[in-house]
């Protein structure tokens, strides 16, 4: 039982001090979770801490590869638009 941080992470550091198990590593080019140390915060908090503060939709996945914060869940944008923004660079979005 462990979460995973993927490459859409912006290395904003918000999750780093919150992990009760020190499972998060400030790696480059993006942060990583050491799977052996992560227990999804069981016993410490109701919600996984990293996924509760992370501002980037889709940056954190569960063991089955599902996004804890799917498109639209943090920005409030319609999911299709949010997914587009997540995939695009800012100037690509402009054309829409």
């Amino acid at each position, binding site marked *: 039982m462990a979460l995973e941080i993927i490459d859409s992470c912006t290395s904003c550091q918000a999750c780093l001090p919150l992990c009760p198990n020190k499972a998060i590593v400030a790696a480059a080019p993006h942060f990583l979770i050491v799977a052996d140390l992560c227990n999804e915060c069981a016993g410490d908090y109701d919600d996984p801490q990293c996924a509760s503060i992370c501002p980037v939709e889709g940056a954190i996945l569960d063991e089955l590869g599902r996004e804890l914060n799917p498109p639209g869940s943090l920005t409030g944008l319609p999911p299709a638009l949010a997914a587009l923004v997540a995939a695009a660079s*800012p100037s690509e979005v402009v054309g829409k």
Partner: protein
Amino acid sequence: MDHHLTGQSGSGSCSGSGGGCGSGAPGLDALGEDVRRKVAEHPCYSEGAHHHFARMHAAVAPACNIQCNYCNRKFDCSNESRPGVVSEVLTPDQAVLKTLAVAAAIPQMSVLGIAGPGDPLANPERTFAVFRELAVKAPDLKLCVSTNGLALPEHVEELARLKVDHVTITINCLDPDIGAKIYPWIFWNHRRVRGREAAEILIAQQQKGLEMLVERGILVKVNSVMIPGINDQHLAEVSRHVRAKGAFLHNVMPLIAAPEHGTYFGLTGQRSPSPQELQALQDECAGDMNMMRHCRQCRADAVGLLGEDRSSEFSLAKIAGMEIDHEAALARRVAYRAKIEAEAAEKKARAHAVPPAAKIKQVIALHPRPANGKETAPATSSDAPVTSIALAAATTPSAPPAQPRPALIAVATEGGGIINQHFGHAREFLVYEASAAGVRFIGRRGVDLYCAGEDSCGDDGESKLTKTLRALAGCEVILCSRIGIDPWRALEEAGITPNSERALEPIEEAVLATWQELAASGRLNAPAPQLRRA
């Protein structure tokens, strides 16, 4: 960041001068003697001398504990007073090194601020590590911080202990229903909290933090982002409320939203306020105009003072190898400040020695005929806020012939209080209102406020010149040091007169002289030209 947005300006570490010359500064009257003195002594506001001081922002705190709909944390979140600037995130050690290196090279350096991207108090270890080091190594530097307020109450003690003397809180509303439209979520007590509940908590924390800071005598400035249709009608109330609680300044900034910023507001078509709407609200909220004038004019970025060529001297690689004598640097800064203070005191003494009536006459003489034979009472020295005079003039019943009306005049400047910038290089303009009553600073208008950079500007088919014309809407003259022939024609077509004849003149004098020329030409007896939208 703290509370700022992609391209949104945020903190800014300025506070205002007290009315140095017996101004009836309304904003300050409500404040205690102690706060008044602190404001007057703060380098950002010290009357007549603030041009000589510089501040620097260090970005050490990228994490944030809330989400604002005007911020896209994926790309950038600028809490700086410079829209669109992507700040380089430093480690606390790097930030200390850089601050000390800059403070050794530039004796003007006097304020270090920690602002965005991120919220400094959501990263308390990093923020306080910088403050602690600097308190020892450069005890003369004033420290300031900008925050969204969520974590403020728990850190007020530490801020006071470290002698942080100035805190900016971004407060966009008092009403949680409005807040729910601005903040989709906050991180609070180990949970992500959403909607109205989130806004309620945030607002309560901001207000509590404000009160706690004021109790401890720490200066509090409040920033608000004006979002048309969401909080624009609400901000006047916010202003009254926070000033009644002891915030010494309330600064309203425009929402900056464009799709390319990737923010919620940008992508959902939320519009930004027009310069005129912004100005009207700013006038309503500003309180002490003299103080606000200094705050908005502040462009005292320390590394910027060095000019483009020298900022590369402070790259991380270079500062790591610098040998600096910190004691000597400190002594140089202290000596520099003493010299500026002495000069300011001397200037003030001279100004007071001139019979004030003589100066006012010069302005009043512009009236073709005093309206009712009674001239407005001269109000103190040249540094007195012009607003008080303007009010007096406005209440004078007007009689024919019509007085020349006030005019908005824009200025391109690189700083130093003079007209010294090429029109084509200006990314923003300072706008002044000139009238028979004198000159007052209205605000800054950014050319790039609505674009993230040359690339994205090119895409939507709108040229920089078009954006510039829009930024200058309502102005009748633009004063700059030089200007090309094409923009010259475009400006004239838009009804704005370009003028480079006053290059290198002090801004306020040049603006007044320009207005006098307009008045003499009769142009100001006609109604203001229709605003032409570029």
